[in-house]
């Protein structure tokens, strides 16, 4: 569900080839269009059958009361009204937002750092590039289980390292600090998920930014160096602006994936403890398959869809101000 899309940055929509023949009669246009559709077939059929058709269907379901078992009952917009006035909806939206706010900076800054590091003539950098990308192609279930063990509050590796340090500090300052309860403590459940997610997606962000870094012409940086610009100035005034298309791509994709976060939450915390880490997609799943409220779940899916649409549209508009399409 949150598998990062792997389209290249700045993927421009393929332009319609300019007609070869002089005559652009409507008939030959139609002929071309037919072939275009034919070649789109391998992706168009699955898209229609497994994405577009279910989407339209879910819009229909969202206007009904349906427990998957009895016949559907028309309720109009009631599901939407109920959801928008329900505390649960706002709670899961808040949790999802919290996730995004924690995850996005962490994964971007981390990915950028790694990309900068591995952009240098480092010994064994091919190995490191592959190593950091490995979590990206690993199943979320495996990653989430490993992190669940690492962050086990009583016998996980992380707390076995943290607690002695805290004990030392406690001895010095007379405080009483204990290692976090991670996924058993409502306050730490979401940070646990954020940590695991950032770790897993770091490699993806790194690869995109690395490609962006390598596209920056060496002579520009060289010229700046000759002019006496220090490392920080070169990064801030040259590298970072020229990297902005890649940054933009990473932000859009990560934000969309962030809104759709599910797998890691489902495996690591199950949305608990007491709903503290429940996210929108998790709620959609529970509504459908635990509570038999497919109508509500479909309505919530559409609310999420519209939300993502608005946020992405705003990003697209906003990009003109800061994305440097050199």
């Amino acid at each position: 569900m949150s598998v990062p899309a792997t389209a290249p940055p700045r993927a421009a929509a393929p332009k319609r080839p300019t007609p070869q023949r002089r005559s652009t009669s409507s008939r030959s246009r139609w002929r071309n269009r037919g072939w275009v559709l034919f070649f789109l077939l391998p992706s168009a059929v699955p898209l229609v059958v497994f994405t577009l058709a279910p989407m339209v269907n879910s819009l229909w379901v969202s206007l009904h009361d349906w427990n998957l078992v009895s016949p559907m009952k028309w309720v109009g917009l009631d599901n939407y009204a109920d959801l928008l006035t329900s505390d649960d909806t706002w709670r899961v939206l808040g949790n999802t937002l919290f996730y995004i706010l924690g995850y996005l900076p962490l994964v971007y800054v981390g990915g950028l750092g790694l990309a900068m590091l591995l952009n240098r003539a480092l010994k064994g950098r091919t190995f490191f590039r592959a190593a950091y990308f490995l979590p990206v192609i690993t199943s979320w279930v495996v990653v989430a289980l490993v992190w669940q063990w690492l962050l086990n509050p009583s016998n996980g590796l992380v707390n076995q390292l943290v607690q002695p340090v805290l004990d030392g500090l406690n001895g010095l300052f007379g405080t009483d600090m204990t290692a976090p309860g991670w996924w058993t403590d409502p306050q730490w459940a979401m940070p646990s998920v954020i940590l695991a997610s950032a770790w897993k997606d770091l490699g993806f962000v790194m690869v995109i930014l690395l490609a962006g870094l390598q596209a920056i012409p060496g002579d520009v940086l060289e010229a700046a160096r000759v002019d006496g610009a220090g490392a920080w100035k070169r990064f801030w005034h040259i590298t970072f602006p020229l990297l902005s298309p890649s940054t933009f791509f990473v932000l859009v994709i990560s934000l969309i994936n962030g809104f759709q976060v599910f797998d890691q939450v489902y495996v690591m915390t199950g949305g608990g403890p007491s709903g503290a880490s429940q996210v929108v997609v998790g709620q959609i799943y529970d509504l459908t398959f635990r509570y038999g409220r497919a109508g509500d779940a479909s309505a919530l899916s559409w609310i999420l869809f519209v939300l993502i649409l608005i946020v992405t549209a705003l990003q697209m508009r906003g990009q003109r101000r800061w994305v440097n399409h050199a």
Partner: protein
Amino acid sequence: MTSRFNGRTAALVPLALVGVTVLAGCAQGSATTTTGADGKTVVRYMNFTSNDGHEKDLDTIVAAYEKENPDVDVQVETIPYADYFTKLQTAFAGKTVADVVDLNYENFVSYAESGALAPLEDVDAAPYKDTLLESFTHDGTQYGLPSSYSNVVLYYNKALFDAAGLEYPTADWTWADEQAAATALTDTAAGVYGDFQPVTFHEFYKVLDQAGGQFFTEDGSASAFDSPEGVKAATWLVTKPGTVMPTEADGSSTPDFDKDLFSAGKLGMWHSGIWMFDALSQVEGLDWDIVVEPGDASKASALFTNGVAVTAASKEKEAAQDFAEFLTVSPTAVDTRLASSWELPPVADEEALAPYLEQTPPTNRQAVLDALDTVALPPVLAAQQEMQDAINEELSNAAAGRKTVEQALTDAAARVDQLLG
């Protein structure tokens, strides 16, 4: 020369393919096939009860049925309990549901209410234990047949009791006795815990009954567990983790944690179902027995009933019902269940249970039947899963100290009332 396969034709291909795929999907949808390749009537049976250890026993029953009915082919699909109801719902939604399906008592009501089950006509009631048969009626109509039942007892590890110099639990025990023994048995340094009772809905309604409380008001229109008895019951459950029992952070809610702990000889007492007999009897060197669970104001034991129902969409209702009756009370089914301690068969004839009582371990099998004298049935409403989740969540809030017991119960009651409303 112009190609016959021009652009216009090409454009139609995606449409045609979409059409074919949709049609294929529909065909799958009505796949409740009636006759197999060899002309036999096919009855599909989806179950969770045989999962994890009794698949072969189910095969034995099915083979016996097919031998008696050579024109019927029973196709069994076994799903783990954790995934069963998700799978069942999707099968209903996708119109691919089997002819005969397993349902437990708690979930039976919502399915019967949904009109998803076929009424069963002319069921021979004589072989069935009448209370069990009755629990699968809805609005006076028989919509299911009980297939097995089980209850929860107190398991105890004799070696640990001996080592601590304690008397074994008896049927007269109360919570106070259990508490004292649990405290004496617990030795966290050695990884030994005195007691294990899950802090969940399925324990709560029972201990509530033991404490003398009610889950719903008499007319069932509102919750009634936010009471002094409720507080007492919840307190009894939530004070165990972290004192005489491992906490959630120790992993207590992970699958098989309790079973592994008891099997390893590191658990003094364990509240669990009689479905564990078979697995525990195979643990080498473990000396254990059972007793009816301790009570408080009164005794109360959980009774879990599984049943089978014929789905309304089935095209072979008659054959399906015939198989369902065979599966539940035929001599083959009863014998197979008893021989493998696969819960208890729902038969009226108590003498039929004699072979079950003769087996050991546990020595005190009579406790299984004694526990049936005072039964606490699970409270049931249409939004069953939502209610159970709400209770579980609030109880775990209390157990983790995030809320007081009183606050957790008040909040749980409000949530349950909203589901009733």
